């Protein structure tokens, strides 16, 4: 029986890649008075649900999604969390 998962995917810039938007935000924070802030980096957060046989299958599919579309691995890293949801998909009613 297939299980239903929620995935929370975090896409971040690789450390070697400059982040001009992060630098601009950091400057904004400093203007707010937060002189103690450093190394602001802006990434993306994506969530989705998927139906898969088990956690291993879901992880394999998510890796493929991230490698090919959700992240550009030339400049970005990704990680994700998988949470199994209560309901199942594909079970006959």
């Amino acid at each position, binding site marked *: 029986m297939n299980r239903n998962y929620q995935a929370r995917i975090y896409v971040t810039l690789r450390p*070697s*890649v*400059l982040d*001009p*938007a992060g630098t*601009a935000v950091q400057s904004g924070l400093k203007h707010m008075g937060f002189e103690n802030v450093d190394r602001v980096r802006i990434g*993306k957060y994506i969530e989705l649900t998927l139906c898969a046989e088990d956690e291993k299958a879901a992880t394999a599919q998510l890796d493929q999604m991230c490698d090919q*579309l*959700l992240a*550009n691995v*030339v*400049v970005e890293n990704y990680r994700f969390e998988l949470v199994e949801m209560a309901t199942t998909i594909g079970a006959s009613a």
Partner: protein
Amino acid sequence: MKFGVVVFPGSNCDRDVAYVTRDLLHQPTRMVWHEETDIADLDVVVIPGGFSYGDYLRCGAIARFSPVMQRVVEHAKQGKYILGICNGFQVLTEAGLLPGALMRNRDLHFICDRVPIKVERTDLPWTQGYSTEQVITLPIAHGEGCYHADAETLAALEDQGQVLFRYQGDNPNGSVNNIAGICDRSGKILGMMPHPERASDSMLGATDGLKLFQGLLTAVVEKMSASAV
């Protein structure tokens, strides 16, 4: 020599390119909708500028998975010519047909300007109409044109002479090594942020881009007539 100009939802320089190839160069040209799956009739595929699929997620990321792009990859494997301009360049890097990635401009602004561009080599069809190290002026119009590649990729690009165009003087967007346009190892696939199609008709006040299209045409026609003998 037949040109095909790919049209994605959000492309906006497609007709400018077709105007150059069809009306200025008098070559058969057709628009290729992103859902098409047969482009075997084309000699040159042009992926034009614009905002394919709204530039959602990343510029060019979603276009890469459109039906026509699978055919463009086959077109590349056959050793045929591909030109990606601006958003087209971004699509080619996302598709892995060219190395590296295009990121947000250094100063975060969308830049719309005419900039000096140095032509690095002239032994390829794309650039044979220019003289070596000639500085030409081409329009740029992009928010994500900052070329990035890791040190190893960059060294390989430079060693193999794959950098065809470089920003001269001020670097407008922060691209590494002032890169404005690169080709693949075979020289058949070119991606560039500047818009040669917008500098091809004298009515628009500049014609430095036309030689790129003319050079390609001359090279391919010569090759065709040579193979016919």
